[in-house]
């Protein structure tokens, strides 16, 4: 027995050595090749001249514009009308009505806590002077979410019914999610005009995948026994779908809606570049004027709004927890404080108020129900019963609309309420601006910033840039294909080669290598900073909780909010671009490191401790190896986000494919922008597939999956 394990160990070791030697040789050859070449490696000119992808796209676009623009115009005008309608309503109604429309459902769905939070959010919009842009953002987001949910639900149901359709949709959905939104944001402009319509359509492309996916999986995961028993009772296929499968998959669908809301919000902000109104425009104007405080206020409006919608949609999909009848229900304080007498006393008036309110609502509603029942019963008795029941069951929704009508009535006939009162202003601009400005002139901080900039540029960015751009293109292509072959298989190796050839033939090889190098540098920095933070978080729960809040905020803030501080401290240029990328894409690696380490079950580390392993040894020899799959997923997500950020970094001096996209769009050269956008997508897909396959192998090796 012993000799056999020895043998396996030995063969593993020699296998490892061989792998390292191969990697070393490949790297050294690359280094030699890159020092041999004079300038950046160029794709053969005969190919790039013949392969005029850019011109084809532009011709195609012109053709579509000339012949089918009337179709898109009709679609756009419908969406536009609806959007303007909604916008006019939101902006011209008295502010209390709008506040009530938002706050009351929050109270109904999420209780007093969410109600208070949502009132704060609405107050914050008005107080920072962002009432109008906030509501415009709400209108844009609301309409796109509605359309996303409608079409996404249909597509999701279709996916769940046909395997072939599902297989067809999968790569489409992947592309929709990875493709930088800028690439289709601008062409959308030419087909659908400016403002709301193209913004909503672009948002649909970006935010629809989750609802399709989650509807599909929700329906597919309905337990087989349920389906069987339904069929045995003689349900037809349609009955089965609409009466059993879809109702049972509602939680999953609601989860999808939640994600759609979040993603739509992110893109609606970006849509300011094609003339959509809203907070995005405010933040962008603030950045233009270098007003950090203003940009942050806008960012916070979005952040608070996102949290509110997130909690609201979650609360909607969750059922109210039932408590034993002898336990006092807490409305504001956490239920776990129930053991403290003082908390009980504090909660008393709230629970009393709740009872009164509920009684009023019920009385009013049943009164209305009776009126309706009497009225309708003149014509038809049984319908009247149904209507009466329908109304009296909705003792929250009906009073809600009653309140809204009351406010509208008062505003119309008695007392004009108008817009948000100016006296309630609150501004946090100045303190934020002052803080950033004092850091800008702080000699200690600036010398640190300069040191960091010099280090990143001289030791990481420039060498890697030179290295990657100077390696001959065929060598890089061969290395990537080989990697694809080793990790995934021969088919993927061929696909990789074809995709890279496409990038080369479009004449954007150098730019893609620059993009690759800044992504790699950003990811390395994310690792160096993120993994230690993740380790600390895995050991200290309080730290983890604080960190999670910060990470949530980082991911929800529109990413151009923190471009200005980066610019002030580090100046414009590639280093700033890398740092902005790091800020944007670091959350997954931190989260997944801490998740991976905490998930390694206590027994493993206890065993290791009992054998006398130190903290470091346990971490290094037991926890890390077991957490590798989780780490790789974090790495994978970080890479994808870093690629996505490449499209924004040209705003602060980033180079590569992102700049290519921008330059293409600034000259309304869709082909050029599209080629570069596709380049980013292809690079991201190749790296994503390779790392995912590698994770799978690691898991298999660890015996985590069979």
């Amino acid at each position: 027995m012993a000799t056999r394990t020895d043998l396996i160990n030995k063969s593993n070791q020699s296998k490892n050595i061989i792998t390292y030697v191969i990697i070393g040789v490949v790297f050294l050859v690359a280094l030699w090749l890159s020092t041999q070449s004079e300038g950046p490696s160029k794709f053969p000119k005969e190919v790039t001249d013949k392969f005029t992808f850019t011109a084809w796209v532009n011709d195609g676009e012109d053709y579509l514009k000339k012949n089918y623009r009337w179709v898109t115009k009709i679609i756009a005008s419908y969406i536009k009308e609806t959007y303007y309608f909604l916008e006019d309503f939101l902006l011209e109604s008295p502010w209390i009505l709008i506040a009530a429309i938002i706050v009351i459902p929050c109270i109904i769905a999420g209780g007093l806590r969410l109600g208070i939070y949502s009132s704060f959010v609405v107050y914050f919009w008005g107080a920072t002077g962002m009432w109008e842009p906030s509501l415009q953002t709400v209108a844009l987001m609301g309409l796109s979410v509605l359309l996303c949910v409608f079409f996404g639900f249909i597509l999701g149901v279709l996916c769940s019914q046909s395997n072939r359709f599902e297989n067809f949709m999968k790569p489409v959905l992947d592309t929709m999610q990875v493709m930088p939104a800028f690439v289709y944001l601008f062409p959308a402009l030419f087909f659908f005009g400016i403002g709301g319509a193209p913004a909503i359509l672009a948002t649909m492309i970006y935010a629809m995948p989750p609802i399709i996916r989650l509807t599909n999986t929700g329906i597919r995961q309905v337990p087989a026994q349920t389906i069987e028993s339904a069929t045995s009772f003689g349900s037809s296929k349609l009955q089965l779908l609409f009466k059993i499968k879809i109702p049972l998959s509602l939680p999953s669908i609601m989860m999808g809606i939640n994600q759609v809301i979040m993603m739509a919000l992110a893109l609606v902000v970006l849509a300011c570049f094609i003339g959509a109104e809203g907070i995005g425009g405010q933040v962008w104007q603030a950045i233009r004027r270098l007003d950090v405080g203003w940009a942050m206020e806008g960012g916070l409006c979005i952040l608070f709004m996102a949290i509110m919608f997130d909690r609201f949609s979650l609360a909607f999909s969750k059922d109210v927890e039932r408590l034993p009848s002898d336990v006092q229900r807490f409305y504001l304080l956490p239920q776990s404080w129930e053991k403290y007498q003082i908390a009980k006393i504090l909660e008393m008036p709230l629970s009393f108020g709740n009872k009164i309110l509920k009684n009023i609502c019920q009385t009013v509603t049943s009164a209305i129900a009776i009126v309706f029942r009497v009225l309708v019963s003149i014509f038809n008795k049984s319908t009247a019963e149904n209507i009466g029941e329908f109304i009296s069951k909705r003792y929250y929704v009906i009073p809600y609309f009653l309140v809204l009508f009351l406010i509208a009535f008062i505003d119309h006939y008695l007392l004009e309420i108008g817009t948000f009162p100016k006296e309630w202003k609150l501004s946090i601009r100045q303190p934020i601006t002052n803080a950033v400005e004092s850091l800008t002139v702080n000699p200690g901080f600036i010398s640190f910033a300069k040191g960091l900039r010099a280090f990143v540029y001289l030791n990481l960015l420039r060498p890697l840039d030179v290295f990657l751009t100077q390696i001959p293109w065929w060598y890089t292509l061969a290395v990537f294909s080989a990697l694809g072959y080793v990790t995934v298989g021969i088919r993927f190796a061929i696909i990789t080669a074809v995709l890279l050839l496409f990038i080369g033939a479009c004449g954007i090889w150098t730019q893609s290598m620059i993009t690759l190098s800044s992504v790699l540098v950003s990811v390395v920095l994310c690792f160096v900073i993120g993994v230690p933070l993740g380790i600390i978080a895995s050991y200290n729960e309080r730290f983890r909780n604080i960190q999670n809040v910060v990470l949530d905020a980082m991911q929800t803030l529109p990413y151009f909010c923190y471009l200005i501080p980066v610019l002030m401290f580090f100046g414009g240029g590639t280093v700033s671009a890398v740092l902005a990328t790091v800020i944007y894409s670091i959350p997954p690696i931190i989260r997944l490191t801490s998740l991976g380490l905490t998930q390694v079950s206590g027994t493993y580390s206890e065993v290791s401790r009992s054998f006398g392993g130190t903290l470091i040894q346990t971490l290094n020899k037991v926890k890390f190896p077991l957490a590798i799959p989780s780490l790789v997923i974090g790495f994978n997500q970080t890479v994808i986000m870093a690629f996505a950020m490449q499209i924004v970094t040209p705003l602060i001096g980033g180079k590569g494919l992102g700049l290519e996209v921008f330059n293409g769009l600034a000259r309304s050269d869709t082909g050029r922008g599209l080629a570069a956008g596709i380049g980013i997508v292809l690079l991201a897909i190749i790296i994503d597939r390779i790392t995912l396959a590698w994770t799978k192998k690691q898991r298999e090796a660890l015996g985590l999956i069979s």
Partner: protein
Amino acid sequence: MKLSKKISALILSVALLIGSFGQANAAKRLHAAIADWTGGIITCEVAVAILEREMGYKIKQTVFPSGTGLWEAIAAGELDFACESWPSYAEADTVMLKEDLIYEGKVVGTYSGDGSVDLLGTAGIIGMSDYWIPRYAAEELGIKTWKDLNKHKAKFATIESGKRGRLIGCPVAGWNCHDQKRLDLLGIDFQADELGTEAAAIAEAKAAYMRKEPFLLYLWSPHWFFGEYDMVGVQLPEHKTCDSFTEANNWKDCGTAAWPATGWAKDYTMNYGNPATFASAEHADAKKFFEKMSLQNIDQAKMLVEVDIKKRDVKEVVNEWLDNNPDKWKSWLP
């Protein structure tokens, strides 16, 4: 099922509610672009305020980045007008305008495009672009013109530019500044860095100024930066053009005597709009107004200071200016 009914009830009722309160407005409407730099925003806001206050208009405004996309949006009728286009920077004007630009009775520009965009008239602002250094650096180092820059290039160097000096250049390639070409032709051993946006360039310049470091910056005037920070121009050679001296011609002949070895031309800025909109009888008054409008640099500069340095609201500042200076704009009314 309970959930879906709740949701559908909500949606339906909100729709009903919207239906019962939405109302249309009867005023004359135009749709204007809000520019992406403060000077342009103010010029347009002056026009918008006068149209709304004096001529019964209701103007919808949309933030839109300047560039060819904006011109196409106006040609397509998505937007009705935009303000203060700078001829040195616009690419679309030569293709889309078909009119002479007249400033105070003199023809200052001739266009022979397809006429898909209507030249509404001059905005009044005359723009100048140059390279600038902060006064403290000019005095300390004794730099008077661009010829002195090479002596002190080490002072202007950064990590990225190495031994050469660094120019915080024209931020967007689409503006056709040809910074690097100009530096090379004039023999200035500096590297032009294109930072992607005005914000990026200004942020770096502002931070450097606050730290009292020397820097060389491309910028146009009037700009709020000059109201807050004391900058001096490096006096590039006067603007000259030479027909065979273009990028397409690979910069043949003419040596260093012509653009882009020289500075920029004076920019007589203009307002432009959709031809169909302004040809209609309904908007004839608006067209007349735009023909007469002419905002002076000094007035824009004053408002720039209020808006960008004192951080006041644009609409408030513009209305205050209109209230206090009726003599300056009453004559623009048709």
